[in-house]
């Protein structure tokens, strides 16, 4: 059986890739993908510890996290559409205020 540390290392790597994407990229779509990477890193941890403890609650939590992530992406893509229509670009640094 694979030790839980390996899952944690993969999760940490995925999370750090997401952090790097958020810190460096200005494209809103890449931003959204980086947030998804960080969310899925948390999901890996939940599933790994679910198996570690022999309880399904962690997997259930990861399922609900996926559902919340889907809702977030739906709203996020809608916001990106509005951003593109108003600025003709998806650069997140263009929109500096909540009002335009």
């Amino acid at each position, binding site marked *: *059986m694979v*030790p*839980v*540390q390996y899952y*944690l*290392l993969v999760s*940490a*790597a995925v*999370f*750090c*890739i997401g*952090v*790097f994407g958020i*810190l*460096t*990229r*200005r*494209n809103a779509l890449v931003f959204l993908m980086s947030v998804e990477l960080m969310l899925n890193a948390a999901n890996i941890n939940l599933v790994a510890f679910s*198996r*570690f*403890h*022999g*309880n*399904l*609650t962690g*997997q*259930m939590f990861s*399922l*609900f996290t996926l*559902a*919340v992530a*889907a*809702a*977030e992406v*739906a*709203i996020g*893509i*809608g*916001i990106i*559409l*509005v951003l*593109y*229509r*108003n*600025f*003709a*670009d*998806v*650069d997140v640094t263009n929109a500096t205020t*909540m*009002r*335009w």
Partner: protein
Amino acid sequence: MTNNTDDRSSLVPGLAAVALFGVLAVVFVRASFGDAAGFTGGEGVVASIGYALLNIQHPDAIPSEGFLVALLLIAVVLDAALDGAVLLARRDENGEITTALRSNAADDEATSEPVAAADGGVVASDDSEEVTG
């Protein structure tokens, strides 16, 4: 389209991300977790997830809590997100941009200046500031 950042500006965030991974890796490797319990039970994982989602008590299912209320709540949340996404992405009938997320929509309706902006076209502007693409 959006320009990517140059190498110098991504060097510090890259180092920060690598340093964060290094710290996490050291902590994880040095921690002792013991042996994993694994899943025990006659039913499979997928069947047990179904039982847990619907609060069904089954003797052979893998132990878990009940998530029926959470399932209903997340259904409502997903429905609200779908409505929100449609509201944000919807165009008006005359081709104008959607007025969602704009606090000066009433001003635009009062003026006769065109505010429409097709994808890749002229960007809408209001009284106070001019926005260029």
